[in-house]
């Protein structure tokens, strides 16, 4: 188990699981969010091949109003 921050919340995760499974596990709909790890963009196509490392900072964003 490693520790990562997801939108600034600390979470324990299994470093073996791919990002795609982690996102679903956290309750995100992969088609409706975009992701960055440590401020680097991660394209949706790479979720299944991406694995987190200890202390990774994950941002999961969705569309909102803007000016």
């Amino acid at each position, binding site marked *: 188990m490693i520790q990562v921050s997801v939108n*600034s919340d600390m979470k324990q995760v299994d470093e073996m699981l791919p990002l795609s499974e982690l996102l679903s596990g956290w309750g*995100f709909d992969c088609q*409706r*969010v975009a992701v960055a790890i440590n401020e680097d*963009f991660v394209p949706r196509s790479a979720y299944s091949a991406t694995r987190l490392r200890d202390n990774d900072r994950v941002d999961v964003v*969705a569309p909102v*109003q*803007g000016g």
Partner: protein
Amino acid sequence: MTDNWTLYGSTFNSRLLIGSALYPSPQVMSDAITASGSEIVTVSLRRQAPEEAGGQSLWTHIQQLNKTLLPNTAGCHSVKEALTLAQMSREMFETDWIKLEVIGDDYNLQPDPIATVEAAEQLVKQGFKVFPYCTDDLVVCQRLLSVGCEVLMPWGSPIGTGRGLMNPYNLQTIRERLPDTPLIIDAGIGKPSHAVMALELGYDGVLLNTAVAQASEPVLMAEGFRHALLAGRSAYLAGAMPERQTASPSTPTLGMPFWHQS
């Protein structure tokens, strides 16, 4: 009068770009945007809590408007943040358009001219069509063009102040020096008269949000801005009379009665 304009190869009729934030309700937002006649709506990305559906509902309303989306990088303070948020936007909104904002100061929320040029250069290389939010600095505008921006969006005054065009002289200089670039006033518009002035100066369009969303009656104000952009554009194309120092009568003086040689 049909009078289209073109942004990165797409043609539009309305010269108003409108934001989707700060409205009293999603329904008022939809009605106001529709009343404004705008064809381009700005959106953004923010962190989502899995369960939350709030943003979702608003986002649904925005999608139903079926407008061209212009995602922004509002809130970014560094080149790196802006680049990453732009990439996330491209995937999420399926558009290579990006309203580039790199804030340089949290007090006046002005763009950082140096970081904005740097971010714009990299975004263009990555295939983005960049709409840079910039100040009314001619040289920064020239730099943005030289790195590949095809549209410029100088501010009228700081975001959300509603102070209108703080520096018409600078804005006019930019217009005169960059006659072939689509120029959009972004930020600071508070009233329809401000939008009319921008187009009278020869600006091609206006981007605003607070002026409509925070009006007492957003839908009616949106309609006001719709007319404002038509008024300003007509005024520019029609060629206004020159301002004169001294009065001159409109009614003919020749044949005035009651005048007699003594």
